[in-house]
């Protein structure tokens, strides 16, 4: 869906910060949150596989935060849902970044802008992009689960995968796509 432009800016946002003070965004106000707030996991070493997967997941979250800004510009009727979703990705981005830094590795910086697969020109295309965002996030977190034997990290990744799956279903419901759910979120 989104790919970073080649030159991330110096001093761009996305540095680790404390997070987890509020609940993650659900896809809408009606369904109860499925997972708890993305708290910063305890520090610990990461295997090369897990680190690479976690860095990819962080990149997906950074792209999601940027792309939801684009969605917000067009999907005015779903402003609350967009804000909640963006907030959820923001919290998870920070928690993921903190986890990487705590392991002694370097967290990738976000890009200045991202190339999206959908040309966003109206509310309909904006909601298409929202679905792409969640599909990409789900795929990234699923890879993290399958790249580590650490039960704590698997749980952390599962919350990211579940949140993305719920948001994807909510966006599909908004646009009237049936079925709204998929049997294996994150699996292509």
């Amino acid at each position, binding site marked *: 869906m989104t790919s970073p432009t080649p030159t991330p800016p110096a001093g761009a946002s996305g540095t680790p910060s404390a997070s987890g003070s509020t609940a993650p965004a*659900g*896809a809408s106000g*009606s*369904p*109860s949150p*499925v*997972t708890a707030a993305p708290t910063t996991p305890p520090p610990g070493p990461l295997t090369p596989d897990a680190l690479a997967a976690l860095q990819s997941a962080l990149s997906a979250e950074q792209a999601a935060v940027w792309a939801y800004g684009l969605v917000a510009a067009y999907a005015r009727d779903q402003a609350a849902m967009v804000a909640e979703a963006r907030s959820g990705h923001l919290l998870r981005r920070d928690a993921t970044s903190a986890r990487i830094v705590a392991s002694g590795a370097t967290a990738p910086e976000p890009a200045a802008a991202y190339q999206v697969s959908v040309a966003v020109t109206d509310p309909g295309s904006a909601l298409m992009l929202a679905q792409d965002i969640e599909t990409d996030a*789900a795929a990234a977190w*699923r*890879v993290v*689960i*399958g*790249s*580590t*034997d650490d*039960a704590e990290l*698997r*749980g952390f*990744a*599962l919350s990211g*995968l*579940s949140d*993305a*799956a*719920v948001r*994807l*279903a*909510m966006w599909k*419901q908004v646009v009237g796509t*049936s*079925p*709204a*759910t*998929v*049997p*294996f*979120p*994150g*699996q292509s």
Partner: protein
Amino acid sequence: MATAPGTPISRRALLVGAGSFGAGALLVVSGCSYFGSNEPAAPTIDLAPTALDPINGLIATTRLHLLRLNAAIAADATDAPRLTPLRDDRQAHLTALEAEYARLHPTDPSATAVATGAPAAPTTGAVTVPDSPEGVVSAVRGDAATAQVQFTDAISAASRYRAALFGSIAASLASHRAVLA
């Protein structure tokens, strides 16, 4: 033959008791009978049974919930359109879980049935469903929550491949709860 504490046991009584116990123990150990041949019976107790694959519990839960979803769709025409896609998801979960079981247990008869496309167990049957449409949806949502917890718990000790599969199914169940909320 009870004796008071401190009462000395006679040598004869001791021999009779020991003989009875010895004969019984011999029968138990050897498996012979008074009228049988000298051939020892085949041992029937497996002292080191094969550990059960934990995926069996997940398959059983999924199959049960599929039964209930089928019954709910049949009983509640109003909610059938939104329950049917969820049933299809659960059927896909069951197929994937059975395929994963068959992958690691190719000699298991039930796994062979899965590999050849035959259902290992029926997914239709008589189960009771609540009377009201609200009750039906609530029951389906409760099943999804139960299964989500079960799959989440199974992630920690599973192999990497299975953990990704279980996690994906748990996330799917989370979305089921959301669309039914």
